[in-house]
Structures are given as structure tokens and as C-alpha cells.
């Protein structure tokens, strides 16, 4: 139990479990799942589906933050990807065909790729500070999206396209499956190759990494491209879910939620060691919070304060000082138990 508590994911997981339990107490059917028309329904599914874009973006953000960077432009990339795909579908001669939908997806992903290359270029080659470099696209990107949509909200009707954000496959929402696939891809990409270790090395000590022969430039490029592609896929989900592209509001402030998910998950903004699983847990916490607010019937004007309190608590619990304090409080009555724990560590 003690060693479990020491795990870096302990507190985020406990916080998530506590939130879910709280919901269950107020709404006894909360954790229940039911089958309807071959689709799985339930609050948990809703949380996962609604949280899918945030999780996707947070995964990309995790790797960027691990290299001591930050990507503020993800919200703008969401808007551009949605605008580009919807504009293409709306203008195509056959707006309802699967080929059109596939091409639209391709266009969005390529747009994400290009925007990631741009961010990576500014950060790794020109040497602009990440927060400034991505701020450029964060502000300019919405303008680009507006240019694409001509300042209008573009509505499309293509069932294939709609299924990305609203469809089901194997009883599960497709957006959840996509997110799971991207998570698996990221995990394999970073842990089966040396990418994860090299990302951490660059984040922990860039100077020493360079002297060890690491090509930090490539690594940094990869993470910004990955982040932007994740954002583009999230943009597809969001626009497909409402079958429309809204250049102004799609993905608005999503960068904040993503950064928050990363931090709650236990990855330090100072770079270095990261955890993708932690980030997913962090994103679930944020999404569950939103749901909890409705479950508990918290009045809208205190919603943000409630969210803030939970986030602060989770962050504080992870701070080394708070952890030491907790350990000391726990150890005080039973010094023998602490001794035993120490022995194990010392080996």
C-alpha cells in the first residue's frame, strides 16, 4: 500500500476514483453501462467521448512539455483542421460520398502536419522560445481558419464524416477508438523506439544531450509535428460531431485544458520525465469534473471555482513539499513502519 501511494500516478488516480465515487453517491446509476441498439451507453462512455479531443491534444502536449516546450497553438490547429475539411466537403461536387470524407480527413491531417512543421521550425531551427513561437500560430491560426470559412460557420452533411465524432464501431463511439489508437501509437512510438528516452534527455539537460551527440533539432521537430497532428485529429472530431466548422469557437481554450491534464497527470512543466498514462488520467479528471458539476447541480456561477479547487488540490498533493509533509504525518505515530519502508528502498 505504501509503495503504491509513492507511485507518481497514485494521487491522480485516487482523485479520479474519488470524483467518480462522488457522482455514484449522488446518482446511483452513474457507473452503470447499458446496451441500446447495439451501442454502449452510460456516463462513463459520455465522459470518454466528450473528453476524447482533450485527451488527444494532451497526449501531444505531453511530449512537447517533456522537451521543455509548450504548444499554445493547438486550439488554432483544431479550428484550421475543422475549417479546411468542412470547406472542402462543402465545396466538393459530391458532398456526401465516402471519398470526399476521406479526402477531407487527409486534408486536415496534412494541414496539421504542415502547422507542426512550422512550429517545430520556429522552435528548433530559429530558436524562438516555444511559448512565443506557438503564440504566433495561436493568434494567427484563428485568422487563417476564418479565411478558409470566409467568416461563416460552414455546415456539412456527410454521414461518413459525421461518424468520426458521432459514430459507433464495435458498440463503442469511434472517437474513443481513435483516441485509444493514437494513445497506443504514441506509447509504442516512444517506448519501443528510443524516442521517449531521447525526449526526456533533451528535456532534462539539453546541453549534455547535445554533447552526447543527440540531434535535439529532430526530436523537437517530431514532438511539435505529433502535437499538431493530434490537434488536427481532435479538430476533425469536434467539427464532425456538430457537422460544422466554427472558426471562432472550435477548440477555444482547449490548450489550457490540455496543459492542465498534463500537469495533473504528473508531468512537470520544467520538462524531463513524462507519463502518457498520467496525462490520460489527468484529462479524465478534467472531463469528470465537468460532468460532476452537472450531477451535483452546482450553480453555473460557482462551477469554475469548484473546478479550480479540485485542480489545486490534485496539484498540491503532487508537490514534493506536500508529499513530504504527508509522509511525515503518516510516519509520526509509527516510526517502525517507516523504518521498514526505508529498508526496502535502500536495497
Amino acid at each position: 500500500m505504501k509503495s503504491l501511494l509513492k507511485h507518481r500516478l497514485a494521487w491522480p488516480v485516487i482523485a479520479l476514483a474519488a470524483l467518480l465515487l462522488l457522482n455514484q453517491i449522488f446518482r446511483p446509476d452513474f457507473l452503470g453501462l447499458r446496451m441500446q441498439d447495439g451501442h454502449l451507453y452510460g456516463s462513463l462512455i459520455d465522459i470518454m467521448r466528450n473528453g476524447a479531443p482533450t485527451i488527444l491534444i494532451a497526449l501531444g502536449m505531453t511530449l512537447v512539455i517533456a522537451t521543455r516546450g509548450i504548444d499554445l497553438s493547438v486550439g488554432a490547429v483544431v479550428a484550421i483542421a475543422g475549417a479546411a475539411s468542412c470547406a472542402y466537403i462543402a465545396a466538393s461536387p459530391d458532398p456526401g460520398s465516402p471519398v470526399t470524407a476521406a479526402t477531407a480527413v487527409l486534408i486536415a491531417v496534412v494541414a496539421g502536419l504542415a502547422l507542426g512543421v512550422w512550429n517545430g521550425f520556429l522552435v528548433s531551427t530559429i530558436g524562438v522560445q516555444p511559448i512565443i513561437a506557438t503564440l504566433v500560430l495561436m493568434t494567427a491560426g484563428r485568422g487563417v481558419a476564418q479565411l478558409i470559412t470566409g467568416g461563416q460557420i460552414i455546415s456539412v452533411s456527410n454521414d461518413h464524416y459525421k461518424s468520426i465524432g458521432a459514430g459507433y464501431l464495435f458498440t463503442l463511439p469511434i472517437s474513443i477508438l481513435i483516441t485509444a489508437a493514437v494513445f497506443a501509437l504514441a506509447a509504442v512510438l516512444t517506448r519501443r523506439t528510443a524516442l521517449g528516452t531521447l525526449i526526456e534527455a533533451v528535456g532534462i539537460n539539453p546541453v549534455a544531450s547535445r554533447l552526447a551527440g543527440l540531434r535535439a533539432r529532430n526530436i523537437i521537430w517530431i514532438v511539435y509535428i505529433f502535437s499538431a497532428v493530434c490537434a488536427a485529429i481532435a479538430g476533425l472530431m469536434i467539427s464532425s460531431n456538430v457537422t460544422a466548422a466554427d472558426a471562432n469557437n472550435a477548440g477555444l481554450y482547449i490548450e489550457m485544458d490540455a496543459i492542465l491534464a498534463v500537469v495533473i497527470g504528473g508531468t512537470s512543466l520544467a520538462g524531463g520525465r513524462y507519463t502518457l498514462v498520467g496525462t490520460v488520467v489527468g484529462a479524465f479528471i478534467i472531463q469528470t469534473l465537468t460532468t460532476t458539476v452537472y450531477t451535483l447541480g452546482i450553480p453555473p456561477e460557482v462551477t469554475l471555482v469548484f473546478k479550480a479547487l479540485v485542480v489545486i488540490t490534485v496539484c498540491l498533493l503532487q508537490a514534493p513539499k506536500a508529499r513530504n509533509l504527508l509522509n511525515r504525518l503518516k510516519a509520526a505515530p509509527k516510526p517502525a513502519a517507516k523504518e521498514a519502508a526505508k529498508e526496502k528502498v535502500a536495497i
Partner: protein
Amino acid sequence: MNEIVPVVEMTDIAIGFPGVKALDGVDFRLFQGEVHSLMGENGAGKSTLIKALTGVYTIDSGAITVLGEPQRFSTPGESQAAGISTVYQEVNLCPNLTVEENVLLGREPRRRGSIDWKDVRSRTREVLAELQLDHIDPGSLLSTHSIAVQQLIAIARSVEINAKVLILDEPTSSLDADEVNQLFRVIRDLRDRGVAILFVSHFLEQVYEISDRMTVLRNGKLVGEYLTRDLSRMSLISKMIGKDMEALAELDQAPARTRAGSGAGATPFIEAQGLGRKGSVSNVDLAIYPGEVVGLAGLLGAGRTEIARLFFGADKADEGSIKVKGASQKIRSPRAAIDKRIGFCSEDRKEEGLIGDLTVRDNLVLAMQASKGWARRIPRRVQDELVAEYIEALDIRPANPDALIRNLSGGNQQKVLLARWLVTHPELLILDEPTRGIDIGAKTQIQKLVNKLAADGMSILFISSELEEVLRVSDRVAVIKDRAMVAEINNDGVSVEDVMTVIAGGAQ
């Protein structure tokens, strides 16, 4: 006054980090009016004990008593409030403030709510005069003074605080002989006035010159407390390394290797001609042959590290040329150098070597992995074999590949960094101060390793502040002075004095 009570008494202290037990049941006491040296190899627990006393680390068990009061320090502030003052190797003052501002920082005398600068000046004058440091202008910026003077000012500050305990952690490592003498005069003066002084240094001679008593630690455990006059140098060293004189004897025999032939007709592995960089170094002509150790000798700041960085591409040369194996090459980046099978151990382990939050395993294979690229991960099995091999070959302790490297001692960190390059099988290895700040056992091991590597055909560029060490391991010595190479000496029975003469006299 029938029984003398120690100013500081630490009993049964234990501190552990994940994977490492840094201190285990250590007792330590410090009396008024004595200079007490804390001795031990790197990783013996000296720094940890000091940090326990200064409140940087909180002890896991044991007791600390200062001036009869039981204490449990959890912040440096608490320790300072108890009368303990520390002067570190890297001076922890504000270089952008004046001497007087530093001396009285945080305790400025006030008059009607604002700082009384006249009083600041006079109090600073007073304390400097007490230490016979009248020549220092209280109004001058701290950064205009040498490190030695800055250290003396840090000591003046603790005198002003009226500290009962003064901890000096490696205070002499960047001082010259005169400066050391001046420091020792001040230390003796304070001792005679009843201050308890804890002194830590790697220089044995200085320890014997200044200290009255010593406590020896080994592997986080207490070996014993001795009066300096009762403990010979040899027995001190054997207590520190925990075995007999074998290692020391071997150290003396180190240069037994037959000198590698840099005979006519052979092609040097690397050859620099007129190599230089604006504002850094100029006019470096140096060739290193396979199987040869070339030493760089020169004073601190003469440009030794700068030359190493040019060879490794860490800085770009803007004049001259480099040939590798006879072919003209541009070395534009560390990566380019590594591709030409050059390795470089920086003198700044912490900033330029270690990836502190990664494990020994990750650190050890980093250079190899970097040159393979991120996509081709070295299989775990191969990593494990390599790491196990080098942990054993270099005697890295603890022998745990999963320990975070920042929890290792300096000497063991250095060995991991050496191993990082050895696994890439370089043809030229540049070692910048590979033995700085590490204990005598590890030092011997590294010097022997250098000999062995050269015997196996590797070229080595060896940089060290210790001329004895340079002469012990090198076949040839290049003398660097004032950011240029001034002479090249074949090491056939050359003495330290000879090299000093060249450094003093310039090009011959």
C-alpha cells in the same frame, strides 16, 4: 568548565535516498576553537553529512545537538539561526552587489526606517579589519574580486553574523598557493577566537596543515575520529579507502606502459593546424597519434577546455584546419565529431554530462543510442549486457543499472560518463578534468584505464589541473598559455618544475 561540551554533536545519523544509503549510523562532534576535517572518498557521505548539518537534507534518524540544544533542521534558515554558517566552493553571495551589501545582506542596520549606509560601511570596515582584510574596498562590487577574495568576504559575513560554527566546503579548490595561505591565516585567527570550524578538502597536505582533528567516513559509515597528529598520511588514506596500500602503490607505478610510437611515417589520428576561434583560443598546432596520450598543461583559464571543445565541435573553429586520419575535415558539431569516432568527457559533469533524472543505464547508452538515431532502439538485452559489463569493469557503485544517476557520488558519475563513450569505441577520447573532485581510489582506476585504453590503440587528449597527473599519464605534453599553445614537450622524464618553467617563461 570541567567538562568540554561539543558545539555540535551529531549522533547515529542516517539518511537514505532511493537506491542509496548515504549515511548510516554516523557520529560526529565539533568542539569550540578547533579545525576539524571531514575526510573520505567521494560517496563516503561527507557532503551528505554537511547538508544534514546545514538543513539542506532532513535526517531520517539520529540526533543533532547544537550548543546543547537538540535541533531538527529542515531548512537552511533554521541551521543558520542556530549559529551555523557555511562557505561553499562556489561562493553563494550576490556578485552584482557591493562587498558591504553582501556582508550585511538581510541584516542591514536601519535608521528611521531606511538603511543606515554609514553604519553599513563602518561595520563592514570593522569586520574586514578584524580579519586583516583592510585592503578590500567595502564599496566595490563583489564580482570585481577574485574567487579567493569572495570566499574571504563570505567568511567575513559569517564573522559579522557571529557564527559559532563555520563550515568550509572545498574552499581551496580554485585558489593558488598565496591565496590558500591567506585563507588559512584567517581560519586560524577565527579558530583562536573560539569558532568551531569544519573543513573539507581533497588536498591532503592542506588538511594536515590546518586541522586539529579529523573524522573519517567510508561508504556512509563512520570509520573513526582522530587527532591529526596521531594519524599518519598513509594510515589516513588506508582508512579512507578501506584497504591496504596496494592501490596507492599501483598509483605510483602507473606509467609503466611503454610509450606508443609516434614514429616517422605514421599518420596521426587527428591533426590540427593553426586551429583557433575568435575570442577563444588561437594558433593550436597539435597532432595525436593512435595509442598516444597527449596531455594539455596550463593554468586554469589558459584555454585548455576551449581547445578540447574545438576538437569535439562543441564550438566551431573559425580559423585553421583539422585533419582526421590524414583527410581534411570540418567538425561542425559534437555529432559530426562522434561520427568521426571522437568522444568528449566535459569537465562540468553536472551541466554538460549527466542527464540527472535518467537511470545509470539510460545515461550509459545515451551516446551510442544518439548515434544510432531514435528509431533504432538498442534492444534491452544488449543494453543490459553493456551496462553490466561496464559496471563491473569500472567498478561502478552502487551496481544498480536502474539507480538515478544524480543519486550516485561524483566518482561513480564520472565512471558512467566514461563508459558512455567507451561503449561507442571512440578512436580519440578527450578527457577534460576526468579526475577532478573524485577520490583517490577512483582516480587511480581512471588513470589506469587511460593507460590501458592507449595501449589498446586509442588516442587520448588528457586535460588536468594537476601537473603531476598530466605527466604521469601523458606521452607528450602540450603547454597552453594565455589562450594559445606555446610549447610541446616529449614526456621523457620531464619534471613538474620543467613544465612550470615553460608556463612561466612562455614559448621556448
